[in-house]
């Protein structure tokens, strides 16, 4: 059977890889989209992602339940987001710089507390197989979809609806577009931004738990190499729209799966260059979607990176 597929193995593996690799991108970018829609940017989600991976793995190992691990990761992420949000509410504090500091602090704390958990094996999150109709192992492997990916897809639609059609969504958008208008309406911009940053942090924590509890499915210090940061760039590409975040996450997941896929079919030449594909793609997308003269369409007007 294997030989019949020929080179089709590669796109199939990339599709499967895209679904597997995209989930952390999806969660981080949804969280960041929510935060940025309220006019704040949290660059520290890379640290939150890694701390979520560590805390989720540790709790899953200690309790035997991967879902408790996901919950712990979400709680830790929310705490990190809350800290970022509260600090950035102080006058004259730069949210980008605080994000960099949170990145260092999150990575440091994750490595510090995560050291005892590098060796033990924690239970994995369950996956649902959508490939039962096929008897080709490659297709079955590609359509092995984790529950968190499906939850993420539902969250993307839910968040899109929340921002577009609900009172809460309107409040977040007003705060993101004009602090003055929000104040005039009697809203408290700093508090609302702190809340969205906390929720965004919780999302990033869940993304981290996916890394350590499903794919690659173990905890070590190299578990994320910039996924949290790429997801922040991905939000700009997705124009702060949760539905577009879903598509962009799949695209980035596919790019991330390129290196391992080519390696698995025996193409090892330039492995490190393929490994760099997601970063190059992110940078290319940033260059293509930025503009020196006009504000980006769809950008929240209070966002520091687009002002």
């Amino acid at each position, binding site marked *: 059977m294997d030989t019949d597929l020929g080179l089709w193995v590669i796109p199939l593996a990339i599709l499967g890889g895209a679904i597997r690799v995209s989930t952390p991108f999806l969660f981080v970018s949804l969280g960041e989209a929510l935060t940025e829609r309220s006019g704040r940017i949290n660059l520290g989600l890379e640290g939150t992602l890694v701390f979520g991976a560590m805390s989720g793995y540790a709790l899953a190992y200690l309790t035997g339940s991967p879902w408790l691990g996901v919950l712990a990761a979400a709680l830790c992420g929310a705490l990190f987001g809350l800290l970022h949000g509260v600090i950035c509410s102080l006058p004259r504090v730069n949210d980008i710089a605080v994000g960099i500091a949170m990145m260092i602090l999150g990575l*440091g704390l994750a490595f510090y507390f995560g*050291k005892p958990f590098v060796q033990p094996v924690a239970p994995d999150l369950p996956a649902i197989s959508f490939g039962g109709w096929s008897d080709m192992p490659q297709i079955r492997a590609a359509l092995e979809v984790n529950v968190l990916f499906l939850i993420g897809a539902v969250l993307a639609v839910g968040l899109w609806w929340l921002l577009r059609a609900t009172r809460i969504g309107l409040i977040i958008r007003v705060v993101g577009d004009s602090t003055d208008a929000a104040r005039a309406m009697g809203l408290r911009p700093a508090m609302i931004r702190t809340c969205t940053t906390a929720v965004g942090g919780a999302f990033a924590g869940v993304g981290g738990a996916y890394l350590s509890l499903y794919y690659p499915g173990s905890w070590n210090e190299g578990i994320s190499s910039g996924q949290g940061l790429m997801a922040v760039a991905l939000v700009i590409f997705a124009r702060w729209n949760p539905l577009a975040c879903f598509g962009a996450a799949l695209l980035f997941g596919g790019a991330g799966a390129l290196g391992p896929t080519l390696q698995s079919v025996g193409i090892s030449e330039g492995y490190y260059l393929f490994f760099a594909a997601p970063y190059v793609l992110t940078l290319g997308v940033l260059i293509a979607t930025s503009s020196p003269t006009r504000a980006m369409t769809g950008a929240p007007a209070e966002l520091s990176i687009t002002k």
Partner: protein
Amino acid sequence: MRASSPPLAATPVQPVTSLAVVARRAEAVVLPLGALLVGFAVFSLFLLVQGKSPTEFFALVYRGGFGTGFSWQNTLSRTAPLLLAALCVALPARLGLVVIGGEGAIVLGGVGAGFAGVVLSGAPAAVALPLMLGFAMAIGALWIGAVGALRHFRGVNETIASLLMAYIAIALMNHLVEGPLRDPASLNKPSTAPLDDALRVGNLPGWDVHWGLAFGVICCVLAWVLIDKTTWGFAARIAGGNVRAAQVQGLPVGKLILGFTALGGAFAGMAGFFEVAAVHGSANASLAGGYGYTGILIAFLARHNPLAIIPVAILLAGFEASSGLVQRRMDLPDATVLVLQGFVFMAILISETLYGRFKIFAPERWGTP
């Protein structure tokens, strides 16, 4: 009377008493120092909660970083790349740019120096070393200058772009030292071919510390002169304060952005050169040692003042130099230094909100009405 006097002299400038100047400068010293102490205090609490002794920690840091001649040598050798990495953050920061990808320029500068060293093998050191240094600095300048160019011509956020480019640089280095530039004899740790002994940079006369330290200090002084004493530096500070005002004044904002980012990158590339020519002897994965990231914290602690970078870099180098001793004696993970850096970084950023809040630092209180 008004019409007869030149416009500038129309309003006599109030004499500023020296006390007022001292008060304003004191704020810029006391607040970062206070933030540093608060960061240490939070870290001490962090250790106490886990039943570890902060006193023992700081005593070990002193011993491992500053206690003996050997520890000073270790600290000062690590200071050299940190000085240059911090300049790579501080120079663009004067224009209001947050460039955090200096690690990429260090790594590629190091690979460039290693490659040039292999090509120039056998050439006299007086010719080869300047060429290697120049090549490393040119690569660094191009790499970070590209971040500035993307910012200026395309409006790409420089923070995200520079960090992405650092990841790309590390992947590129891995590709080069494991592929085209690999010395077949390097089995366990893929490296470029080892440099000739003649092309190794030695120690400062009478010191056990390589020349990188002297170059780093000189670069800090030069950067301070550039920022504080030249019109370019003055223009950059205006552009950093308000880009629109600078453009209205006709200042060449684009050239300033390109120049300052490229210069910062050249300094980071120089750090890569010294890591290869003075420390490792060939280019390999050890280049990505995190100096670029520690440099971010140093620049922020020094409030992007190149002269202040020197003592701050020595302090943080001492912490890194002592980390092995601290790990062994106190059974702490190697990430301990990273946690400490995180707390200090948070404290220094929070302290930004306190400027102008303390009446004791207000110049009016000390002289001028």
